[in-house]
């Protein structure tokens, strides 16, 4: 086995090198967040068209060699409708941005659920917010 020593040493060095490289570039991913969404939960609205707004924040990454990403887009849709639409952002690509969009609530129903999600420039996705609005 003595003859294998150089191979083991080489393998160990290679592994240590990889660990060092990986630690250098490993980051702790944190998905973006959505907050302060209006209308607030439980609200009853009188109009079928409703303006929604809120704040999206890319909390970015932490750790050595981290890369911070801004908010790329905020998407929304009416539950039951498969089509996602983009919200209007005041500062796309920034760490924090406001968003607004105008949604047509479901006709003839006593409530509509609107689903909202944010995606940062690194492709990370926020938890989805489901806001039920009474009509």
């Amino acid at each position, binding site marked *: 086995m003595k003859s294998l020593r150089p191979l*083991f040493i080489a393998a160990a060095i*290679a592994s240590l090198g990889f660990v060092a490289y990986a630690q250098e570039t490993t980051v702790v991913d944190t998905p973006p967040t959505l907050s302060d969404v209006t209308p607030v939960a*439980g609200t*009853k609205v009188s109009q079928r068209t409703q303006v929604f707004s809120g704040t999206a924040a890319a909390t970015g990454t932490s750790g050595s060699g981290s890369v911070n990403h801004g908010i790329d887009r905020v998407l929304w849709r009416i539950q039951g409708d498969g089509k996602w639409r983009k919200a209007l952002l005041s500062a796309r690509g920034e760490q924090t941005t*406001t968003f*607004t*969009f105008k949604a047509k609530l479901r006709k003839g129903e006593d*409530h509509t659920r609107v689903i909202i999600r944010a995606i940062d420039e690194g492709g990370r996705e926020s938890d989805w917010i489901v806001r039920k609005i009474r009509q």
Partner: protein
Amino acid sequence: MSAPISLKEKAIAGLLAAAVFVGVLIYVWPDHHRSAPTAPDQIESQGAASPQRAGGAANPGIPPAQRMPEDFAALCAQRPREAAALILAMPEGDGRTSATQQLMDAWARSDPNAAAGWVESLPAGPFRDDALADLAFSWGDASPEAAGDWILARLRAGGDIGGAGAVAAGWGQSDPAAAAAWASRLPDRKARAEAAAAAAAAWGQSDGAAAAKWVQSLDDPASRTRALAALAGSWPESDPAAMAGWLNRAMPSLSADERAFAVASLVQGWTESDPAAAAEWVNGQPPGDDRSLASAALADSLADEHPADAFGWAMGVEDPELQGDTVEGVLELWLEDDPAAAKESVAAALAQQPDKALRYRIYDVLYRTDPAFRDALFEKIEGAGE
């Protein structure tokens, strides 16, 4: 001289190195790569928890329509606990959501404390959150002072802020000024912001100017911004011109976020009732970020029903990045709804557009939405030499 290394020894060493390498890979691989993102379909059930999670027995074999008594409203009013039991046995979905709203409306008027006890007994989750908000809204509408005391008691007992906003929203139906005053007194900062937003939104439907004065008097910046965003969402429904006048005067005193919420929401709301007046207001804004956002909001609002106008407004957005985003949003819809008209208008607009940088930004947008059309247009306008 060491002995020559046999093939077997080489294989063992190779395997060991590979094992260490794989181990290291597994150790350092980021967590988010180990789990798949939430599937879009999974979210559909988030708004209403499964019957098991809601504390009831699942019975998917019986459609809800067959399980509901004919006069469910009477059952809610006379025997709410039986109605509640029926709801818990229903499969999740719109039927259960509507039935829960109906029950909470009735129970909040007959015995709100019993209703609160039932809601608090539900397991945590979306179904409970919705039921709590429904009860809070109806109780706030029917007996606001008592509903307010219930929320205060919950907060003092260490409960979550759920229901604070909905009580203010319900209270605000009849007396938004009183709802706002109550919201200002809440001991929890998050609950205060949530309730302030709901009160401001309700107030904006009847007297936006008074609501704006109150919002601007709020000391806490987070509450103020939140309330202003909510007010901006509702005020244009009742009197967009009054809000525009207020915004023209208040603009210098607002934070960047507050201006963004106000400008975008005003234009989006106003476009619904009077797009010409909204466009005139946008045209009257001085050049800069606010005007860019206003133009983008106008384009975004017009995109569904007036895509040609929307495209014109999108092209006029000053901020290059926002312009590209807005043009892309408008074109995505237009190319889907009426591709012939969209392509004709885009080709005409680009042929007359002297700003090369802008033309190239539009090509980028088209590359993402319709690459074949983009290539043909690029060759026609820019020539083969580009």
